[in-house]
């Protein structure tokens, strides 16, 4: 490092630190604690609380250690009488009107004000007058309760909101001692990262609605874990009391979360102890699902699967799911399918996403914090992997990075950025033109309506300027993926040096890991093609098989085969296909036609209700093992935090099922690790799993039709675009009482112009219909919607958009309000 070092003496201890280091950080290095309230290493220095005042030689007045960068030869005193008096003074001021309700305060026990008063404060108060009162228990937003009296106005929350979340919702109102933390224009404090202010608050002013009065800090049993809400895999700490999960806080992993959690990761935990969770296996008897014992259920599953296999062969069985499991479980599931059920029909993909990580242009999450150019392709990181968006927003606002979004869904950012909005299916055409332009073609291929060739040239100029380019894609449309890679290769080939990082937020938390573990048709663990003789040999030996099943069907193929009656038995693991698969009718038909359907899930989901056997699985809190996130980083959870209760972990269920099928498998974590070793897979904490080969995107020769709009709207119709929303989707979200307050309501988002043209108003009940399919929604205006399209969240249980089978031209009609009898 060529960084200049300066020498500074603090209380007689000399330390060398890089130039520009703040005094408070330099003191930390020599083990001197300077008390702070408003200072936070992740926020800009503000110097508001004046708690950190220290004396510096040759400076007339005491200086704030949290705002003063050290200079060479600086001599600092933190233990003088004056400094001690000032600390006492600041604490006295802070406590003047601070209520004496520590016994009832959620923060009591982990409160900076308590701790520092103990360490530095005067023992008594000299206040003669009565304390002044301010509003208590203010509902700031869906998850945050504000106590103005306890607030010491350090403004960490306001600064976080402006600097990190890049919002402008929190403000300081009034002046002097009337200062209040408030929201702009009294609107509720609502965005995807509000919960972080609870951690930042040094006192008990901002508390969690869900955790309020549930426990005191010393009650809590704290267990490190990995968040399984999305594919970022944030490091979290789970806090239990009396065996109930009461709180989730971040552990600050610079490789993933960077210290910030999204609200879904932080507040969606009550499902773990939901009353509705399945605790007993269910088996269909006379058309009804009835609770049975584990052995009975497993016997039933083994008997029926064996019967189908003997009668129709292994290819009549199919296994779908695994994107929510640990790496061990994913490995065991594909082994179960291939070795025990004898079928090559395995796929973890449940939502239409094709890949969740490619081997080309590898990117890390941390790259987003350094990129100077962002390219978003059909991707809404805020809704699919929210924590990534914090890095992007900060990049845009702090580093003046540039961003261009291409696609049928476009994100919303506060700062200026490029937007190329197209109809569903047209993204590939834009990218093909981009690839041609990047390759230096004079004549660009045909562009979708509304996209100007000049825009493409501007985009080329912008990409040319980028030194570090981060690309995010949703991984759904293979044609888009192929053209995207083509464009990126063309960009790489241009003169000048640059690094390109492609990230594909996974639809499921472990999509990338499941794919690597072989939950893909045609690929064995480690993306080894099933046809590779050498691997076949290893596996045959390892698994004790005579014959390894060949390449099977993917999810779409399995569903089609089941609907046609060719596939008889289905094993769905953590896959609520009825809500998540783009074609809902196909799923219903397939599940109805299949002879025998086993669903393994936490809840009786829409899919589980159609099953013949439902096996209750345990949530992530009861699991140990390894997880891989969207950039392939492997993270370990050493110990389960909870017992699985009446349910069983997926690993235990797979093992028990194998044994019920008469196989002598050892399915411990250690055995699986040994098998990985034999296969040459490196899975350990901190390892990076490679991305999938590009062949997953299908043949390189693309049909001429690719890149043209998949649907065309007739007069008076709009094109329906299913869109990701953080608080939409079935599964755990629908069964979490804490999430009810934010769960997406069945709403359709129109461009304001379209809404006006249709003669509709915000809040009108509407019905979207195409052919026989129809869903009832409420109309909302959103400026980021592309004119001519209507966006509906994916996976709403009340209004499943997959009735339309993907993008569709829909007719919008206003619903007459139902008259209640």
């Amino acid at each position: 490092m060529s960084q200049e070092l300066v020498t500074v003496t603090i209380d007689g201890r000399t330390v060398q630190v890089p130039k520009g280091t703040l005094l408070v950080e330099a003191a930390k290095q020599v083990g001197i604690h300077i008390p702070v309230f408003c200072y936070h290493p992740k926020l800009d220095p503000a110097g508001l609380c004046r708690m950190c005042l220290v004396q510096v030689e040759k400076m007339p007045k005491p200086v704030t250690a949290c705002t003063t960068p050290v200079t060479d030869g600086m001599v600092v005193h933190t233990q003088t009488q004056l400094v001690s008096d000032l600390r006492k003074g600041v604490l006295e001021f802070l406590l003047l009107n601070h209520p004496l309700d520590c016994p009832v305060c959620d923060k009591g026990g982990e409160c900076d004000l308590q701790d520092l008063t103990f360490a530095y404060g005067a023992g008594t108060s000299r206040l003669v007058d009565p304390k002044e009162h301010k509003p208590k228990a203010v509902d700031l937003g869906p998850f945050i309760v504000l106590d103005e009296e306890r607030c010491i106005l350090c403004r960490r929350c306001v600064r976080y909101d402006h600097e990190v979340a890049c919002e402008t919702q929190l403000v300081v109102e009034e002046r002097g001692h009337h200062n209040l933390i408030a929201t702009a224009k009294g609107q509720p404090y609502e965005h995807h990262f509000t919960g972080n202010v609870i951690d930042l608050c040094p006192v008990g002013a901002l508390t969690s609605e869900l955790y309020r009065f549930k426990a005191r800090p010393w009650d809590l049993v704290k267990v490190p874990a990995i968040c399984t809400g999305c594919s970022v895999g944030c490091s979290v700490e789970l806090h239990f009391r009396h065996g109930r999960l009461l709180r989730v806080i971040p552990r600050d992993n610079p490789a993933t979360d960077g210290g910030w959690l999204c609200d879904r990761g932080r507040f969606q935990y009550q499902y773990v102890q939901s009353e509705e969770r399945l605790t007993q296996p269910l088996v269909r008897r006379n058309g009804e699902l009835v609770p049975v014992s584990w052995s009975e259920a497993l016997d039933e599953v083994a008997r029926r699967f064996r019967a189908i296999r003997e009668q129709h062969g292994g290819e009549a069985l199919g296994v779908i799911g695994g994107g929510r499991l640990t790496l061990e479980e994913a490995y065991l599931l594909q082994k179960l399918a291939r070795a025990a059920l004898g079928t090559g029909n395995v796929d973890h993909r449940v939502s239409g996403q094709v890949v969740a990580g490619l081997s080309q242009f590898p990117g890390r999450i941390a790259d987003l914090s350094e990129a100077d150019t962002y390219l978003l392709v059909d991707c809404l990181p805020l809704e699919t992997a929210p924590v990534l968006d914090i890095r992007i927003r900060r990049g845009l606002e702090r580093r003046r990075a540039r961003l261009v979004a291409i696609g049928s869904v476009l994100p919303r950012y506060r700062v200026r950025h490029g937007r190329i909005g197209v109809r569903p299916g047209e993204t590939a055409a834009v990218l093909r033109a981009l690839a041609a332009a990047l390759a230096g073609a004079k004549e660009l291929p045909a562009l979708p309506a509304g996209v100007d060739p000049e825009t493409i040239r501007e985009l080329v100029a912008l990409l040319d300027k980028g030194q570090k380019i981060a690309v995010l894609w949703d991984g759904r449309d293979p044609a888009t993926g192929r053209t995207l890679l083509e464009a990126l290769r063309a960009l790489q080939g241009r003169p000048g040096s640059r690094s390109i990082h492609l990230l594909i937020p996974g639809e499921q938390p472990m999509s990338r890991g499941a794919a690597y573990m072989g939950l893909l048709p045609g690929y064995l663990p480690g993306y080894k093609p099933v046809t590779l003789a050498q691997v076949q040999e290893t596996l045959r030996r390892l698994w004790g098989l005579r014959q390894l099943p060949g390449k099977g069907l993917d999810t779409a193929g399995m569903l089609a085969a089941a609907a046609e009656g060719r596939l008889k038995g289905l094993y769905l693991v953590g896959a609520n296909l009825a809500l998540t698969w783009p074609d809902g009718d196909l799923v219903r038909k397939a599940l109805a036609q299949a002879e025998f359907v086993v669903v393994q899930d936490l809840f009786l989901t829409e899919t589980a209700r159609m099953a013949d056997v439902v096996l209750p699985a345990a949530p992530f809190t009861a699991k140990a093992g390894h997880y891989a996130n969207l950039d392939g980083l492997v993270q370990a959870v050493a110990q389960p935090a909870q017992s699985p209760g009446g349910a069983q972990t997926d690993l235990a269920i797979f093992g028990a099922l194998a044994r019920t099928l008469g196989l002598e498998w050892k399915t411990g974590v250690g055995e699986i690790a040994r098998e990985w070793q034999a296969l040459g897979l490196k899975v350990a904490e901190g390892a990076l799993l490679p991305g999938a080969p590009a062949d997953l995107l299908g043949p390189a020769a693309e049909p001429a039709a690719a890149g043209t709009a998949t649907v065309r709207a007739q007069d008076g119709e709009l094109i329906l675009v299913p869109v990701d929303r953080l608080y939409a989707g079935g599964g755990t979200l629908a069964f979490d009482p804490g999430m009810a307050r934010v769960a997406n309501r069945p709403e359709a988002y129109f461009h304001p112009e379209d809404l006006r043209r249709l003669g509709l108003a915000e809040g009108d009940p509407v019905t979207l219909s195409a052919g026989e399919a129809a869903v009832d929604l409420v109309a909302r205006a959103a400026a980021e919607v592309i004119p001519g399209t209507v966006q509906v969240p994916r996976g709403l249980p009340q209004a499943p958009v997959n009735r339309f089978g993907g993008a569709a031209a829909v007719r919008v009609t206003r619903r007459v309000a139902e008259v209640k009898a």
Partner: protein
Amino acid sequence: MANMLTAIAKGLGTTLRVMFKPKVTLEYPEVKKPRSQRFRGRHELRIYENGLEMCVGCELCQVACPAHAITVIAAENDPNNPRSPGERYGYKYQVDLLRCIFCGYCEEACPTECLHLTQEFELAAFSREALVYQKEQLLARAPSHFKVPENVYPPYTGRKVLVAE
């Protein structure tokens, strides 16, 4: 002979003398031995003079207890029907008297002077469960002379909502 008679007279004299002294045995359980002012018996949760519970569910007694005999679970007050002044009250309060060692640390820890140890010592029951005292058993029957410290716990008026402009 004379010796014998004097011995009997002496013995009877003792009897006679003791007959007129105050009695040392007590008619327990009708009469109970007086206890020290600082005697530590069964726990009691005081209530304020206006009938509100003094317990705010702070769990400090729980953390002070060396025998892990106390369990407190708090909840938010219903502003229309508050159980205690302020926002929080002890929703569940248990003392496992089989574990309790009557050290009185809990009493010392109580920030509201709610929890105290009474003079009651007759703590016997026919099952272990019956000796895990619940809140209903621990609450005082009559209000105490304590007044609500309004400056510390202003009346809880419920959640406030933001006023939109």
